[in-house]
């Protein structure tokens, strides 16, 4: 049987103000994306209810409250 191998851990960027600002920006964009799937009713997608209706089943199955 092969033995489990571990790789040397990756060098992760040091936590700096710049990294935190970048991370905050990324988190805001990701929240917008998650909002688009889970809650948006046209305010963000500018497509009326189209995107909302399109992703209706996904919302139910991902467990988000929906109507």
């Amino acid at each position, binding site marked *: 049987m092969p033995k489990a191998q571990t790789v040397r851990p990756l060098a992760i960027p*040091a936590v700096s103000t710049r990294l935190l600002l970048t*991370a905050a920006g990324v*988190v805001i964009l990701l929240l917008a*994306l998650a909002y*688009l799937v889970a809650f948006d009713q046209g305010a963000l997608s500018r497509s009326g209810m189209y995107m909302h209706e399109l992703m209706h089943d*996904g919302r*139910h199955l991902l467990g988000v409250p929906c109507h």
Partner: protein
Amino acid sequence: MPLRFGRLLVAGLLAGLIAGLIAGTFAYFAGEPRIDAAIAIEEQNTLGHGEAGGGEELVSRGTQKNVGLILATSLYGIAMGGFLATGYTLLRRRLRTGSDTRAAIGLAAAALTGIVLVPFVKYPPNPPAVGDPATIDQRTTSYLAVLVLGLVAVWAGVLAARTQTHEWRRATAGLLGFVVVVAIAYLLLPAVDEVPGTFPAVLLWKFRIASLGTQVVLWTVLGLAFAALLHRLATSTGPATAEPGTRAAA
């Protein structure tokens, strides 16, 4: 030189896309039959608020079932993958393990517990034909609250575990820290009971299990795929990872 945040983020987004596609496929087979059955009930009730039912449809059922479903799980997966990669970058040094695989899968498991399992027990997901449209705003707020409190509970568990030294004490303290926060959250948040008495219990159960399964598949694949991509980065970036003591020095 340490890795750039961008490369970790790309790994997370890619892992999220893979996870979303697989979870969407699972949801199609496990969940769609239940949604169809629930919509049939919704249409029988005619006067229901029927987004999917009724005359004019913005999006056809056929499109909602495959394209719409996979699009939703993929975008959701990408967002979760981005959160995982960001969390990993900021927290990696605080995760006391020398294994990136354990760190990645551990974080995914923590997220699954906090934002899926804890909310699932308090506010189980509902199929079409269940739920009062008049209370949707209040239910959405409560859902977001339980999701945040779920993450707080996991964090409390980790903090509690770290106050102890022996392994069994760490496990017990961690569990207690988690359970105390979850119990307080469950007690404080309002109860929701909007399942009509006539809705078939078996269908409700099957829908909820399919929904839980979708999230479990998504987070499991996400954790594994992210760990695999990290491994690839570690073995391909060469000198960046070969420097001894980079983690301690950073």
